[in-house]
């Protein structure tokens, strides 16, 4: 469904994306995980035709993103990181204008269905500026789904949301997957990537440093992690294939340790020596 080959993007002298390649299958939820500034949003902008790359090629559904931008726009939906709703328009007006822009048939019925689905139908006449942050995120998602896109891009979908609303959003995203849509999401929340993604790409300083299913990535470094703080106050992580190996290591350590299952952030730390923040 999505194919990215040797993608490169510079902003001035800074290489924001550095030779990134990957493929995403139809119906898959693919997550791009990495700290702020890793290049996640730049990749989303390139794939959604907003930014032109300096090198490399991208295809969605066989269409070249640069040469066939108009075709690509027909079957993608985008939830950007920054809220880009019209604050001076109501919930319904935002949906209506988007629907008209995308030439949606039976628009009124579809708007009602989607707003009910995200719990915003009762607020349809409210100005967007009067909605809470969580409601605005849900509206962004409903708006992106209005055109029934084959591929949905979610750039940091739950950024700034409290845990309860975040989990509600995850439920909606899981329902989207059941409709056999391809979802490309970026996040710097480990739990989000683990909860939602079939496969994950880990991005650091514009480079894709790991790619696979969350379980395969964990297996590649060890399923169990021993975490402790050394005498200089530095956080130390050791990963092990089995729980027994982890216990053996912990016994030998004089300092208090935590033994737990490896998560995606441990993989990132193992590969880069940095935390995802």
């Amino acid at each position, binding site marked *: 469904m999505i194919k990215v080959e040797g993608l490169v993007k510079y902003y001035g002298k800074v290489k924001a994306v550095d030779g990134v390649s990957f493929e995403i299958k139809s119906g898959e939820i693919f997550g791009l995980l990495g700290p702020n500034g890793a290049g996640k949003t730049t990749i989303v*902008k390139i794939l*959604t*035709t*907003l*930014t*032109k790359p300096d090198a490399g090629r991208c295809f969605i559904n066989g269409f070249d993103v640069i040469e066939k931008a*108009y075709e690509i*726009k*027909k079957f*993608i939906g*985008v939830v*950007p990181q*920054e*809220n*880009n*709703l*019209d*604050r*001076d*328009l109501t919930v319904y*007006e935002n949906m209506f*204008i*988007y629907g*008209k*822009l*995308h*030439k949606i048939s039976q628009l009124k019925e579809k708007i009602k269905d989607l707003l009910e689905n995200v719990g915003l139908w009762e607020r349809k006449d409210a100005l967007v500026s009067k909605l809470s942050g969580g409601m605005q995120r849900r509206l962004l998602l409903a708006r992106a789904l209005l055109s029934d896109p084959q591929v949905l891009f979610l750039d940091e979908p739950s950024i700034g949301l409290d845990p309860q609303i975040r989990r509600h959003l995850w439920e909606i995203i899981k329902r989207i997957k059941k409709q056999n849509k391809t979802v490309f999401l970026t996040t710097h929340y480990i739990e989000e990537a683990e909860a939602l993604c079939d496969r994950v790409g880990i991005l650091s300083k514009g480079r894709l440093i790991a790619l696979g299913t969350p379980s395969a990535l964990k297996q590649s470094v060890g399923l169990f992690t021993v975490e402790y703080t050394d005498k200089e106050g530095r956080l130390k992580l050791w990963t092990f294939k089995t729980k027994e190996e982890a216990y053996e290591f912990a016994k030998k350590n004089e300092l208090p340790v935590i033994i737990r299952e490896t998560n995606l952030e441990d993989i990132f730390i193992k590969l880069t020596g940095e935390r995802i923040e």
Partner: protein
Amino acid sequence: MMDWYPVFLRELLIFRRRLLKFGYLLSAMMLPIIYFIVFGLGLGRMVQMEGKSYLGFLIPGLVAMTSMTNSYTWIANSINLNRLYFKTFQVLYLAPISYSAIIIGEVLAGMLKGLFAASLIIVVGFLTYPNFGLSIPFLLALLLNCFLFASLGFLVGMSAKGHEETATYFNFFILPMGFFCGTFFPIERIPEFLKPVVFVLPLTYTNILIRKETFDTWSLGCVLVLVFYCVILFGLGFRVIKNYSE
């Protein structure tokens, strides 16, 4: 064919909502009303211009100036702020519509804003100057002027790297045009060294055309110049959006 309509409708809905705010309308009309009172009703009572009262000369000029500033400002600010800060321009850009549909929708919205503001001055003209009338050159000048400056607003809104830059364009181009291009006094009275500059600026031709009572050769020349500017600015706007990349 009607892909521009949702772009236009969006601006229309926002405009309608802002119009309901009393302060918004007042601030948009403050400057032309001040000019009208100070120059028209104040100083103007002592002046005769081209054989008629100064008010009769001033009102078409104010219509041209008001339509220029409103068409330009609305679109330049809207595009620039929506592109750089509110990111709502990206919603239009990501829609499966042509680039020209985006420009047409935005320019028509800018024209509407300019025509609305101009119509308020026209109403004041009818109320205060009994001989005031709308000729074909007047209406043609008004429409072309709105299209031209809305297109310029689109171009500036797309090109300016920040909101301050759109204000700079306003202060260096739009504001001087309002004063030097025949709004308040005939272009013949302008100092000789400024005339070459004034005859490059499009508002000069709007001001000549808008005061014509009948369509003559001069009028045709003005129309051609204004159409030329419209085509160039619209074309440049299309080029900028076609090459758009964040």
